[in-house]
C-alpha cells in the first residue's frame, strides 16, 4: 500500500439519485496506484474526521478516479457541497487489501445499496465473465445499471419493493444464478445482514467469497486502531482493522455479531 495526501481537481460532479453524488477526480498518482476495493479518505470541511469512500472506478490512462457517496450525515452533506472544478482533499489510495481478482476467471459480483459503487471496478475486470446482482430499496435508489451493463456483464436488478427489476433480495437472485452457474468466486459489498447471508450461500455451494466491510474510522491508515472488526486469524479471534487489514476480507475470516 502506497498512499499520499493531496488536493485534486473535481473534473465532474453528477447527482445519480436523491442524495447520491458521483465525483470524477483528476489524480494521476493516486489512480496509478489504486486497486479495486480500495478507498479514499475525504476531508469534509469543518469536520474532525475524514470520510472513507470506496473507489468506484479507476481510469489509469486518464489518471482519474470515480467515487460515489450518499449523504448520511453532516459530514457527507458538507462533501456534497464540493463543486465541479473545485479541489477535493483526499488521502488515497487506502486499504491494505482490495478485491483479489487475478486468479479468477468467472465471478458473481453483488452490491447492496451504496455498496454497489465499489463493485463496478470489479465488474470492469471480469467483463462478460461476470454476473452482477444489484440490490436497492426501491426504483428511486437505483444507480449504476448502465455502467454495469457497459462492462459486458449479465446484470440482475433487485429492489425490496419490486418498483424496479425483480422484487426481492440479492440473495434470492444469487441462489437462482447458482442453480445454473458455478463461478470461481463471489464478490460482495453491502449491509452486514446481506453479507452474512451471501457468505452462508457461498459456503453451502463451496464457492470462494470476498466481502468488503465498513466501520467507523479514525486515521484511515492503520495507526489509530478504531475501525476494528471481528475476524479469525490463526484459529483465534482477532480484531482486525478495516482500513489496513481490509476493507476486503475472505469470507472465512469474518465474524458477525450474534
Amino acid at each position, binding site marked *: 500500500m*502506497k*498512499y*499520499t*495526501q493531496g488536493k485534486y481537481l473535481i473534473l465532474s460532479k453528477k447527482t445519480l439519485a436523491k442524495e447520491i453524488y458521483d465525483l470524477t477526480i483528476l489524480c494521476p498518482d493516486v489512480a496509478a496506484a489504486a486497486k479495486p476495493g480500495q478507498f479514499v479518505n475525504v*476531508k469534509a470541511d469543518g*469536520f*474532525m*474526521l*475524514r470520510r472513507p469512500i470506496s473507489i468506484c472506478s479507476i481510469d489509469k490512462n486518464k489518471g482519474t478516479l470515480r467515487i460515489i457517496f450518499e449523504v448520511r450525515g453532516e*459530514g457527507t452533506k458538507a462533501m456534497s457541497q464540493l463543486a465541479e472544478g473545485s479541489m477535493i482533499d483526499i*488521502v488515497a489510495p487506502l486499504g491494505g487489501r482490495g478485491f483479489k481478482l487475478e486468479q479468477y476467471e468467472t465471478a458473481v459480483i453483488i452490491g447492496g445499496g451504496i455498496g454497489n459503487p465499489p463493485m463496478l471496478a470489479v465488474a470492469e475486470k471480469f467483463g462478460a465473465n461476470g454476473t452482477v446482482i444489484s440490490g436497492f430499496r426501491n426504483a428511486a435508489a437505483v444507480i449504476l445499471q448502465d455502467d454495469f451493463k457497459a462492462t459486458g456483464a449479465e446484470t440482475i436488478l433487485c429492489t425490496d419493493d419490486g418498483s424496479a427489476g425483480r422484487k426481492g433480495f440479492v440473495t434470492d437472485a444469487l441462489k437462482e444464478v447458482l442453480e445454473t452457474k458455478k463461478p470461481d468466486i463471489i464478490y460482495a459489498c453491502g449491509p452486514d445482514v446481506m453479507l452474512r447471508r451471501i457468505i452462508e450461500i457461498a459456503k453451502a455451494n463451496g464457492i470462494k467469497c470476498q466481502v468488503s466491510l465498513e*466501520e*467507523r*474510522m*479514525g*486515521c*484511515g*491508515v*492503520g*495507526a*489509530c*486502531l*478504531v*475501525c*476494528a*472488526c*471481528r475476524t479469525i486469524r490463526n484459529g483465534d*479471534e*482477532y*480484531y482486525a482493522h478495516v482500513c*489496513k487489514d481490509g476493507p476486503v476480507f475472505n469470507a472465512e475470516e469474518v465474524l458477525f455479531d450474534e
Partner: protein
Amino acid sequence: MSNTNKLAVNFCGVDFKNPLIPASGAFGYGREFEHFYPLSTLGGISVKGTTGTKRNGNLPPRIAETPSGMLNSVGLQNPGVDHFIKIELPNLKTKDTVIIANIAGSTADEYREIAEKLDKTDVDMIEVNISCPNVKAGGAAFGVTCEGAASITKIVRAATSKPVMMKLSPNVTNIAEIAKAVEAEGADAVSLINTLLGMRIDIKTRRPILHNNVGGLSGPAVFPVAVRMVWQVANAVNIPVCGMGGISRWEDVVEMMMAGAKTIQIGAALFANPMAPVEIIEGLEKYVSDNNLNSLQDIVGTVKPW
C-alpha cells in the same frame, strides 16, 4: 545556527530536535505515517500503549465524532511488550528520532514487569499511562488518586533507570496534586492531558455510539482544558511538562508552551491532517525567526497571568 536547532530542547536529559511528538495511540509505531514524511522530521514518537501481553481491545464501534473533537474507546489493543521490543523497537531506532515507550498495566506488577523489560532496551524514555479511560482494570483507576499515581510511579521508578514520564488523567478534581505526588516519587516528567471521559448516544436507537458506552474525548474541543491544566501543573512542580490535548496548529503549540510545556504531543489532529507535524514545525521555525528568538524554549511558561 539554523532555525531547526532553535527548536531543539533537552527534556529530562534527552535531546529532541524539536518539541513535537505524535501522541501514543494516534500514530501506531510510525509505519503508517512514513508515507507522508520521514519520521526523522519529528522530535520524538510516543508509541502505541504497550501492555504486558497482547490485548484485543474493545468491541467496535470505537469512535464517535463530536463537535470539534472525537471520542475513542480502542481499549489498548496492542501486540504486547515482547513483540514491541523484538519487532517494532529495532525498526523505530533506525529512524533518527526520540523513541518514547508508552506503557499501561492492569496491575502494579504488570507495570513493573514491562518497565523492567524496557529498561534492558535502547528505548529513550518511558511514558507511563495511568489515565486510559477505556480499560476496566488499572489504567485510569491508578491515575485518579494521589496514592494510586504515586504507587505506580514508585514501582516504575524502581524498575528502570530510563527517564520516566507519568501521563496524567484530566478526570480528577485537582491535577496539580496528582502531579506533585508523582514528582515526589521520582518521576522525571509529566505529560498531560490524556482524554476526557465522554459519551454520545444515537437518539434513534437509544444506544451509545461507542460499544464501550463511554470513551475518551480529544481534539480541539479539549484544548482550553489542556492549556489550563498544563498551566496549573507547570506552576506546581519542578519537573518538566509535556503538554497535549487538542493541538492542531503551530499557534496551539506556542500557546501550550507559554502555559508551561517544554515539549508537546499531537494526536487527533493527525487523522484529518496527517501532514500536521510538518506544517507545525514550519510554522514554529517561522515564529522563532519572526520573533528573533534564540530558542523556542525561551517562551516556555512566559504567560503573564492577570
